[in-house]
């Protein structure tokens, strides 16, 4: 395993040290327990918005801490949920008296750790609400499973809820928005190569020189099927059709679209993917009202991409355009 690291067990901490040095105007890092928090937290009277999860998906979540997005992020070990003490401390650090929203990706570990933290916080009189993001159409949604994974929609939910909280919305309203965004969002991912978790030291799965994995999760969890490589056009068409059929999206819908790189795919290819996506949507009468193209929810150096679409209404688009100032997403500021 060749990586730009010193010690596999200290990657997350040492990376956070660099993040803290690089963005002192935006955020602070607590190391015991570990969390990243807005430099100006807590903001009295403002709802706090928090997320967290395993590390290795950067810029999500730590790179989305800042004005108009997250008040704090709790990074776990690579691909491992954070622990309740981190989440509790972060929640306390951002509570400005108006309550705190936990945005949780739907993984058993994340949910249980956030639940334990919420119990601890509520015992201290902090109002905590939680919304679980589960947008991954590659996974069957069933009462008999842990349900769909939370993937790309998390970024959009964090951004929109962050903007709403910044506007001074009450906790219930921010929570409702988060549920609305999640309900209107669908994602699907694919991988061309695996990635290597530093502590594991070897690739987390194997793909043949001509194989791809459709419907992959952001931790390299196997997806819908393993197939032979196909041209980007066919891959994008498959992903898009699966997504569109699921909600379903309809003629006249406006969407926020994200073409997300898994980490090891050049930006050149991500734009090529976007160039395939938008015409497909237009042909079905769907307008891309806003978009992100780049690396937002990565899986270390995995090559591949995901597509996320959120049906957006006027309010969401207006929130989207509000200023945001984080290491990973920035405009209007």
């Amino acid at each position, binding site marked *: 395993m060749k990586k730009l690291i010193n010690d596999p*067990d200290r990657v997350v901490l040492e990376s956070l040290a660099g993040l803290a040095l690089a963005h002192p105007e935006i955020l602070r890092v607590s190391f015991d*327990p570990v969390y990243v928090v807005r430099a100006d937290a807590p903001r009295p009277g403002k709802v706090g918005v928090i997320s967290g999860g*395993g590390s290795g998906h950067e810029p999500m979540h730590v790179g989305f801490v800042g004005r108009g997005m997250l008040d704090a992020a709790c990074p*776990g*070990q*690579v*691909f*491992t*949920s*954070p*622990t*309740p*003490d981190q989440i509790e401390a972060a929640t306390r650090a951002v509570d400005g008296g108006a309550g705190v929203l936990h945005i949780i990706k739907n*993984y*058993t*570990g994340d949910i*249980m*750790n956030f*639940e*334990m933290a919420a119990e601890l916080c509520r015992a201290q009189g902090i109002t905590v609400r939680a919304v679980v993001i589960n947008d991954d159409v590659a*996974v*069957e949604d069933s009462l*008999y*499973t*842990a349900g769909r*994974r939370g993937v790309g929609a998390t970024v959009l939910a964090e951004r929109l809820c962050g903007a709403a909280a910044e506007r001074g919305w009450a906790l219930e309203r921010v929570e409702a928005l988060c549920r609305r965004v999640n309900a209107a969002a669908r994602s699907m991912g694919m991988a061309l190569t695996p990635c290597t*978790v530093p*502590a*594991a030291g070897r690739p*987390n*799965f194997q793909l043949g020189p001509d194989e791809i994995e459709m419907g992959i*999760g952001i*931790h*390299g*969890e*196997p997806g819908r099927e393993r197939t032979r490589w196909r041209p980007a056009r066919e891959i994008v068409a498959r992903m898009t059709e699966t997504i569109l059929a699921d909600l379903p999206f309809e003629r006249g819908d406006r969407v926020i679209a994200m073409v997300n790189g898994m980490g090891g795919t050049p930006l050149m290819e991500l734009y090529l993917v976007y160039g395939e996506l938008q015409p497909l949507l237009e042909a079905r009468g769907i307008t891309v009202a806003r978009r992100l193209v780049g690396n937002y929810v990565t899986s270390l150096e995995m090559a591949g991409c995901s597509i996320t679409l959120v049906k957006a209404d006027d309010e969401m688009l207006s929130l989207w355009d509000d200023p945001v100032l984080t290491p990973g997403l920035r405009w209007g500021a």
Partner: protein
Amino acid sequence: MALGRDDVAAWLRALRVVYAENKTLLTDLDAAIGDADHGINLDRGFSALVAELDKNAPADIRGLLQTTAMTLIRHVGGAAGPLYGTFFLRAASACAGKQRLEAPDVVALFEAGLQGIVERGKAAPGEKTMVDALAPAVEAMQRSLGDGGRLGDILQAGAQAAEEGMKATIPMEARKGRASYLGPRSVGHQDPGATSAWLLVKTAAERWR
């Protein structure tokens, strides 16, 4: 034979060695149907536990188990952190006020721990989780206790039932946790959490003979 505080501490320290030795096995099992970190997570958690015990060892059984719970909750993360954390939290409560654990107390410890995991994870038997090793283990211990078994026999029965339960997870389709995303593709693999749960009971059986 009743267990004292030092016996409990010895079990916890032995677990640290056992999970270190089985780090790769557990991680490999998790690689097949999860995210390849179960062994790493437990190794990190129990290393931290021993470091904590070295620094600051509680004087009673309940304290030991509570420290274990808090340390695992803080250092394991993932699904296993809250699950085993809750196990030890409930186990600690079950031991409240006890200086020594007689056979019924030990069974009660495991019962309470299992109950905690079930409440935290909401998994029923047959869903391919650690419950599939722990639930039969607790039943077997209760049965052996009812039959008047000695502590060593009780734990032996528990370990054997845990092992069988662990193996029974192989043909199961996962319905909880990360492996459930795989649906039918999860069949044919042994559940990592059931495996670490078996090690938990087996180590107790070996320590507390």
